[in-house]
């Protein structure tokens, strides 16, 4: 289902061939937009009561207090703005064919896409006439100049920082820190609730993403890993090489063992997506569950976190 969304093959074929052309137009259009925009980076810079100063990865920016038209370029920003009740007018998505992730709910379904997360379209962003743009320095650094001529632009440093830090930055940009604190408190409460209900203490859990035979194990600093630990699980110890995840050969599949093993897939009903290495060692993986990668991997943010916790709740309820 998620693999093949509603759109017909012909339409997607069309998209595949028309989009590259669109990108070319966008690229040529960019320069025009950059050249014609009046007084670059000035924006609503007058420091008065209607704006607040936000410190971020690219310096300090005056942001209107009452933003109405936000464009987000990073999944965690999309998730957080929706969670705070500010539905963005545009969002860069990981997969243009799939669009805005379904877990964000109906309110988010109508958000316009402005290209992909690694390559957002400045043209499309400008067309939406935003009053705030949120992006990521490690991904969109080169676009900052252009974006800040369109609207006040706030950049977080990287998507690999602890996600709660990035949630806090988005909240500061929107001027709703109390709302973000509440969301994170709700998340922590939900974690504690699961840990208590199912007596999780002492149990290990491992989140695994299969890729072409290689298995990617997610560590405690990853979004999925931190949510599992928040819910009371321990991730089996190993050398995480100071990274959020470590790849292992299928020959070492037994290193992925845990009381609860979660394997990500684009379609949880398709059993062939479980890697052969794990299927061949079924006896070593009694607590195996296939989970939806659209929120377990890419659902970074308070809403995604809650969705993952709901999923953990469901899995534990089924196995008890």
């Amino acid at each position, binding site marked *: 289902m998620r*693999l*093949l969304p509603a759109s017909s*093959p012909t339409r*997607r*074929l069309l*998209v*595949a*061939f028309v*989009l*590259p052309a669109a990108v070319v137009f966008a690229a040529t259009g960019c320069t025009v937009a950059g050249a014609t925009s009046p007084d670059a980076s000035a924006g609503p810079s007058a420091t008065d009561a209607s704006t607040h100063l936000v410190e971020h990865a690219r310096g300090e920016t005056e942001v209107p207090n009452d933003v109405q038209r936000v464009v987000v370029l990073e999944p965690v920003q999309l998730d957080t703005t929706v969670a705070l009740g500010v539905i963005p007018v545009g969002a860069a998505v*990981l*997969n*243009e*064919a*799939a669009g805005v992730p379904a877990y964000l709910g109906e309110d988010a379904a109508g958000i316009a896409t402005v290209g*992909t997360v690694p390559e957002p379209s400045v043209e499309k962003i400008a067309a939406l006439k935003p009053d705030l743009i949120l992006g990521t320095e490690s991904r969109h650094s080169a676009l900052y100049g252009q974006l800040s001529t369109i609207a006040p632009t706030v950049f977080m440093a990287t998507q690999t920082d602890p996600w709660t830090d990035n949630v806090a930055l988005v909240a500061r940009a929107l001027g709703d820190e109390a709302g973000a604190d509440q969301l994170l408190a709700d998340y922590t409460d939900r974690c504690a609730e699961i840990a208590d209900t199912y007596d999780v203490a002492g149990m290990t859990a491992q989140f695994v993403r299969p*890729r*072409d*035979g*290689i298995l990617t194990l997610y560590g405690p600093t990853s979004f999925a890993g931190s949510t599992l630990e928040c819910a009371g699980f321990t991730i089996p110890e190993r050398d995480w090489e100071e990274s959020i995840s*470590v*790849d*292992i*050969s*299928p*020959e*070492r599949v*037994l*290193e992925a063992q845990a009381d609860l093993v979660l394997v990500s897939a*684009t*379609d949880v009903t*398709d059993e*062939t*997506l479980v*890697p*052969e*290495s794990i299927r*061949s*060692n079924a*006896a*070593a993986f009694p607590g195996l569950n296939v989970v939806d990668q659209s929120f377990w991997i890419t659902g970074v943010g308070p809403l995604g976190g809650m969705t993952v916790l709901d999923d953990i709740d469901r899995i534990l309820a089924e196995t008890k």
Partner: protein
Amino acid sequence: MVTTLTKPARTGHGPTRAAWFVVAVVVLVGAAGLSVVVGANPMSPGTVLGTILGGGTDESRYLVWDQRIPRTAAGLVVGAALGVAGALIQAFTRNPLADPGILGVNAGAAFFVAVGITFFGVTSPYGYVWLACAGALVLTVGVYTIGSAGGDHAGPVRLTVTGVAIGAVFAGLTTGLTLTHPDSFDRMRGWSAGTLLERGFDVVLPVLPLVLLGLTLALVAAPGLNSIALGSDVARSQGVDVRRTRLAVLAAVTLLAGGATAVAGPLVFVGLVVPHLVRWTVGSDQRWIVVGSLLLGPALVLLSDVLGRILVLPSEMPVGIVTAFVGAPVLIILARRRSASAL
């Protein structure tokens, strides 16, 4: 017969050549042995032997029977197919830089796999096999049809140019498709690097008949290639059916390269380097080059795969990346030799 008339340029190879083939067989057997013994999850040779003889633990049985033996078999088939396909295409086009992908085989296979992944939700290596085979066949037939249009039969130069042109178009389409569909890009990434991971017997066995047919055609066509190397007219005067030999060679290359690509994805450099190595050491007789490539192709693939398993522990490096690293220096050394290997 033809064979007596087309002795290789260099003679007196008798004992040397016999010794060369003994060495090649030893290297191949050694590579296959290493491929069963060495892996990302270290196991003593004794344990491996014990497991093969019916003992071992659950884990060692999984490592030997589910991982190493199937991928060794896949490496043998893929390497043999690519080595021979490379030898044939270099002789056929009389171009030392030709590799089996020059007729659009890889581009066609990749495009079909990309379409299958993007629009039909194909996710398993088993599914890729048939898509890749179909793509390779369709595109080579297309290249042959276009290359031979206009009355004249398909000459090597025309075919090469057509193959490169059409291959470029389809490579572009594949790129367009995967860049606009990140999920497909993710899945294609592993395939297009070339890998033997999770290529079990369920993937290799369906392709085996195609490869065997291709190898048979190659052995039948090789003597004729010796004559064609002297020019079409000479070949004709020697009683070689040039058109039929060329068709057999093209069919063999398509089956071999298509089959290999279907199993492992496009493995670069194997088809290019192996025939050079063989030509360098056994001379220019196409029959011996084909047989030599049949032995050295799988040896190169298996040794590269073994390297890939231990280079980036605890993960693995796809064999296609290793063959590129191993193949490039070999090719440079060969190119710098004073007398280029005759074709």
